[in-house]
């Protein structure tokens, strides 16, 4: 096995870098904005009566005192003023000085402060994105209009999880999704992709000969195996992508127990083991692939659905446990996957390669939540709109 050279040089005698996150105190309205930002939406509050758009988040319309609702908005803006902050009392930003920010006039109406890309200048047109900062809260990031995100921009990198040159653990190299994820991460420039393979599976041919890919034993149902796998990685671990799942029809007790062992207890074993490793890294992230059956059960797959629901619950707790450490926890929702587990499920099904692309997109786009494939997008839309109806109509 050959490793790509790591550009990061580390002096073993240096004291461990202690990492901080931006201040987390926010109003309830701001948290509502963050919850939508986590879904990749660009929203501002709009009055349901006079249609005035307002920012920062308020609890009542400042124009007519009508009720406010979150609405998707156009993302254009103009930069009015800028500054480069060089001094701060905040520990997180102190470690990232100097920091460029500015005043933008949003095309949607309000004026906002925003983080700025290197290429945006005063008077210039901007595209604004609603990102999630290292502390887990929504933040506006303005780029020059038409500008592609620049992974070498150190401010932008604070809002995303770069894949290039990173060490990544992917669980369950036996599955089609796991294998596709490994290939995608490798193609995106990961320095080292460690692939966990539960015994007694043989190393899959799909992973043979990939540079920087290493296969290690990893069985999420075995606490010791998880611990030994993480020990075996030894060096820094930046990202974990969990693709392990156990999909069976019906609600057999043995299958249910195994699904819970892999998906629920397995997630706990994995997160408890890897959290300290991820916390020490500048851009630690944990990505998990969750079936939209976690939102509302599929009565044809009750055991699987239950395990996925419990899995999602733990994943959300893990996200909030990691909030203070800057480790991003990302959820990829998928519908039925076009793999051997869903042979009898009719189309549309999402291709493993599409999920793999979603993993890279979520990391490099800083997305806390991403629905991959039409079925997942549809499921999320219906569930968000009317959960009770969705549970019924899904199983008619």
């Amino acid at each position, binding site marked *: 096995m050959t490793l790509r050279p790591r550009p990061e040089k580390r002096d073993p005698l240096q004291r461990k870098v202690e990492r901080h996150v931006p201040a987390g105190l926010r109003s309830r309205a701001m948290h509502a904005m963050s919850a939508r930002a986590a879904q990749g939406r660009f929203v501002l509050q709009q009055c349901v009566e006079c249609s005035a758009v307002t920012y920062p988040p308020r609890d009542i319309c400042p124009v007519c005192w009508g009720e406010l609702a979150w609405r998707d908005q156009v993302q254009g803006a103009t930069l009015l003023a800028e500054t480069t902050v060089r001094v701060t009392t905040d520990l997180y930003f102190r470690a990232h000085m100097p920091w460029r920010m500015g005043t933008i006039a949003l095309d949607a109406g309000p004026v906002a402060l925003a983080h700025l890309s290197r290429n945006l200048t005063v008077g210039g047109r901007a595209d604004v994105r609603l990102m999630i900062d290292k502390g887990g809260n929504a933040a506006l990031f303005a780029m020059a209009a038409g500008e592609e995100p620049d992974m070498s921009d150190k401010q932008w990198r604070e809002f995303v999880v770069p894949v290039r040159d990173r060490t990544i653990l992917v669980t369950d190299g036996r599955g089609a999704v796991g294998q596709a994820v490994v290939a995608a991460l490798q193609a995106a420039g990961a320095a080292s992709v460690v692939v966990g393979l539960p015994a007694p599976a*043989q190393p899959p041919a799909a992973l043979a000969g990939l540079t920087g890919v290493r296969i290690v034993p990893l*069985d999420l149902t*075995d*606490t*010791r195996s998880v611990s030994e796998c993480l020990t075996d990685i030894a060096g820094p671990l930046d990202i974990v992508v969990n693709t392990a799942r156990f999909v069976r029809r019906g609600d057999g007790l043995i299958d249910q127990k195994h699904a819970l062992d892999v998906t629920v207890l397995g997630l706990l074993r994995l997160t408890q083991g890897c959290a300290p490793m991820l916390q020490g890294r500048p851009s630690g992230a944990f990505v998990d692939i969750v079936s939209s059956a976690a939102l509302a059960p599929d009565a044809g797959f009750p055991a699987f659905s239950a395990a996925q629901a419990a899995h999602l619950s733990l994943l959300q707790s893990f996200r909030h446990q990691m909030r203070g450490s800057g480790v991003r926890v990302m959820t990829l929702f998928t519908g039925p996957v076009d793999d051997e587990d869903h042979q009898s499920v009719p189309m549309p099904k999402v291709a493993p390669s599409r999920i793999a692309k979603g993993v890279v997109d979520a990391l490099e786009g800083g997305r806390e939540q991403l629905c991959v494939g039409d079925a997942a997008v549809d499921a999320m839309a219906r569930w968000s709109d009317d959960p009770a109806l969705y549970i019924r109509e899904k199983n008619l």
Partner: protein
Amino acid sequence: MTAVETVLSGLTSGIASGGIAVVDLTNTLSPDFPVIVLPAEFGQCEPFRMETVSRYDGDGPAWYWNNISMNEHTGTHFDAPAHWITGKDVPNGTVDRLPPADFIHPAVVIDISAQAAADEDFILTRAFLEAWEASHGPIPPRHWILLRTDWYKRVGTLAYLNLKEDGAHSPGPDAEAMRFLVHERACIGLGVETVGTDAGQAAHFEEPLPAHSVLHGNGRYGLQCLTNLDQLPVRGAVIVATPLKIQGGSGSPLRVIALKPGL
């Protein structure tokens, strides 16, 4: 002392003095010890798992203990007649109802390690057994038949289960051999180093899985995942194999020891 008391006393003093050697035929029960893998359409065997409850810590400052879970047929284990459909009507065929006297029996060791090394799908036939008897003498009744393959040396590697695209590959008996041992030699059971008493490819035999089928259909037992069979004499060893008393259980992990003449 009665004659029996003399025998028992001799046993314990023999063990104490080393005149009787005790050989551990058991593999260590660990989470990574492989379990049998069935074709995907069947339910699967759950491996041994262990979670620490406390270890002199906040959950138990002065004590250490674990919760464990496993399939009955995990690690070095005992197969009772009820394990197989052919044995489903055998009286007292579950581990909790077996006669305790059956837990201690003498053994003969048949060494097929050279053949297994040459051919991992080596089939033990009646002809082989007859040839073996010709050179080693007849197999006496009410004995464990222990098949020495040296397969235990593969433990810890993928070559132990030896799974390939067409399934597992490991040595084992055919149906004629099993009928010979059960009906004509009245064996107590068959003990092997591999993960099953049957050969890896035995599902594809003309009479599939003959060891399980013939042994259990006739009230005989199986011992799997044994180790150290190469330390036993061809004759003269006594096997102590006491499965857990699991209500209605089809088998159980257990500690198997052999007594043999010592120094």
